[in-house]
């Protein structure tokens, strides 16, 4: 059946049809929907793991047990999962194992734009790179055959434009899952030096065989057109090249990003007058071509950063892009903001008011760094807030301990904040860690996590109690506060920062976008009382603006959280009337 499918949805369909039985992932834009869609098939056991390293090891365990498995993550997630990745390259697999990594060139929702293809080369694991939904579907199916034939995990690299674009897919049926028996094999699976030394040459031999496979596999193909220009490309760049050049140029489309073929590239180069490589981010194909002794146009004309497009490809390779009209005036930007009613807002207002040094983490609350709150001074990677506050306080001592806090979301805390907290408990700094518990993984679009009490399908699951967990680590000071209550936030923050011992504040209120959260009617402004002092504007709520010198509430956005009311001295902001 032909249907429009998101790249991630098509990927999940491929997993299903290939007989995948176990999937474990950690959400991360743009990879999240692969696992969410896979969870819609009852034949696949799916779960959200606390982090990518755990997820990859779960998937490996399932493969070891003889069932086809999957693990999905975003590019930075692969940094977390790198440890098991590098060594399961040595052990190989039992049943097929596929890893999805989704890059985010252009950083639509990421803290860096690292190129995941380096990992395939570094871990010596084959990597496939689809260029639309149809290929995401087909490659996912074939990836399992490749995995089992070559005894290796297989990485499939997605990117934002493949993951989050819909194109037409013709789907098929699920093939009956072939369960493989688990057999004890110490020499293959116990990677102590004596065994690993014997596995390493097997990895090198496998890479030689995979390179030979890459020379004439179905993943790579030549599309001959005009021979004045030949372009080697992959992934979404292939689409930009086709759009810009059609049949004018000849194209070598590489669907296998690692290992790269040699003869195929040399033969293609010999057929064209001039050779160009079009690839986003790092010059991986280009460097490979240069090693083969070829002269290529590449990063001398194309950027190392950001997303490409058809016009950029056309222009950099000497074609005229279309003309357009321009307004010629600078327009105010529209950066993303915390939603109206976001529970993080009240807490960040309190931090801003107290002039705290705030070390932040990864999640919606990173938006606490933007105007008017400007309340976050560090965002590095998952869990870094908790670890780095300890280092910050060890470096500065009492000078910083009384005014510095770490903020981390519930899901990020479970991902990799816990280990940092263990370090604070063990090596003792008077650090204050604030867990922003909004009862969901927010930024990636509402995924459950170990603190919510529900699993990926929304069914009841185990629930980790944050207070008990912190106390079990040895924290004597664990306080829960409602971030809608500014007075309580202020009092608790001051007390905990002043304490001469480690402390945890749990700022608890569910995300305002959760379906089960009941909203209050929008507030209304008493224009007689409003003096236009703009105190309510200090919290940066998108539902409040100033119209004709008085506060105005956008009824379509306001959820009646009442945080702004607490800042209004003339009491001009009134509860709205309940709609009947």
């Amino acid at each position: 059946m032909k249907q429009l499918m998101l790249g991630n949805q098509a990927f999940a369909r491929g997993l299903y049809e290939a007989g995948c039985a176990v999937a474990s992932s950690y959400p991360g834009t743009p990879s999240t929907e692969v696992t969410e869609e896979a969870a819609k098939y009852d034949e696949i056991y799916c779960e959200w793991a606390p982090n990518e390293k755990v997820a990859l090891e779960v998937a490996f365990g399932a493969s070891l047990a003889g069932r086809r498995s999957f693990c999905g993550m975003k590019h930075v997630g692969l940094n977390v999962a790198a440890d098991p990745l590098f060594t399961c390259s040595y052990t190989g697999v039992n049943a097929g194992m596929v890893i999805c990594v989704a890059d985010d060139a252009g950083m639509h929702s990421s803290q860096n734009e690292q190129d995941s293809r380096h990992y395939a080369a570094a871990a010596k694991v084959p990597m496939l790179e689809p260029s639309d939904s149809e290929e995401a579907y087909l490659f996912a199916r074939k990836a399992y055959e490749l995995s089992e034939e070559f005894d290796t995990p297989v990485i499939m690299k997605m990117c934002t434009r493949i993951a989050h674009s819909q194109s037409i897919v013709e789907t098929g049926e699920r093939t009956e899952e072939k369960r493989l028996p688990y057999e004890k094999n110490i020499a293959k699976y116990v990677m102590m030096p004596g065994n690993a030394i014997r596995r390493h040459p097997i990895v090198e031999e496998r890479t030689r065989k995979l390179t030979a496979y890459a020379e004439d596999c179905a993943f790579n193909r030549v599309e001959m057109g005009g021979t004045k220009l030949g372009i080697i490309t992959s992934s979404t760049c292939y689409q930009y090249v086709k759009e810009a050049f059609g049949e004018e140029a000849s194209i070598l489309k590489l669907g296998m990003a690692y290992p790269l073929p040699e003869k195929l590239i040399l033969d293609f180069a010999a057929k064209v007058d001039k050779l160009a490589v079009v690839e986003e981010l790092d010059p991986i194909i280009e460097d490979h071509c240069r090693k083969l002794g070829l002269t290529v146009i590449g990063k001398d004309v194309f950027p190392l950063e950001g997303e490409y497009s058809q016009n950029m490809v056309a222009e950099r390779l000497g074609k005229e892009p279309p003309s357009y009209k321009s307004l010629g005036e600078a327009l105010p930007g529209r950066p993303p903001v915390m939603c109206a009613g976001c529970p993080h807002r009240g807490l960040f207002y309190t931090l801003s008011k107290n002039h705290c040094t705030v070390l932040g983490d990864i999640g919606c609350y990173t938006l606490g760094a933007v105007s008017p709150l400007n309340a976050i001074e560090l965002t590095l990677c998952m869990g870094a807030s908790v670890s780095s506050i300890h280092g910050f306080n060890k470096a500065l001592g009492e000078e910083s301990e009384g005014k510095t806090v770490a903020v981390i979301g519930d899901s990020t805390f479970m991902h990799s904040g816990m280990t940092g907290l263990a370090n604070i408990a063990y090596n003792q700094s008077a650090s204050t860690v604030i867990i922003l518990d909004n009862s969901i993984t927010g930024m990636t679009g509402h995924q459950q996590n170990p603190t919510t009490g529900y699993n990926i399908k929304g069914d009841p699951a185990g629930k980790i109690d944050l207070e008990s967990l912190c106390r079990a680590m040895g924290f004597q000071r664990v306080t829960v506060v409602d971030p809608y209550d500014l007075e309580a936030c202020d009092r608790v923050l001051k007390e905990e920062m002043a304490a001469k011992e480690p402390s945890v504040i749990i700022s608890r209120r569910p995300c305002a976008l959760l379906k089960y959260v009941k909203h209050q009617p929008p507030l209304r402004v008493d224009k007689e009382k409003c003096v236009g002092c703009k105190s309510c504007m200090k919290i940066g709520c998108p539902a409040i603006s100033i119209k004709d010198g008085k506060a105005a509430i956008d009824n379509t956005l306001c959820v009646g959280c009442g945080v702004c009311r607490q800042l209004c001295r003339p009491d001009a902001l009134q509860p709205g009337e309940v709609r009947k």
Partner: protein
Amino acid sequence: MTKNIMIVGVGGQGSLLASKLLGHLLLSEGYDVKVSEVHGMSQRGGSVVTYVRFGDKVYSPIIDKGEADFIVSFEELEAARYVEYLKEGGRIVTNTQQIDPMPVIIGAAPYPEGLIGKMQALGIRVDAMDCLSLAEKAGSAKAVNIVLMGRLSLYFDIPAEKWQKAIAECVPAKFEEMNQKAFLLGRGEA
């Protein structure tokens, strides 16, 4: 020949339903279709863009500057923001609703005035209407997306019944009647 429709607005305004509807409709018309969306951080009240492309064979999932046949905008400032993406001779279909972005809210910049007039002064065809009022008339402020689709449908050779069928297939049954009304209001037929 590939046709390009860009849908722009503010995160949370419902552009994903509009692109879903278009994708569904154009697929049923036998076209090759690509739809490109933005998820994650960018959705939180920020400026959002969705690309819909259709034709015999579509390659790139995105629309570049100077390529859009139509820009469908949920908000006035957003229409102006993406004007460079419009093809020579293309058309802007926009809601006249103004939503203050954070720089305006905090007083760092004014909301630009007369944007529609400025675009028209460049010779750009702008079809501007108050979609929010029409959506509220249909029964929900959330139906701005379908009002806009109604307006857009006037510029297509695809009969209204096919759009209405696509709406029936893309929205939950309990909201269908309201959305069908919004569609007709957008067309100026209700």
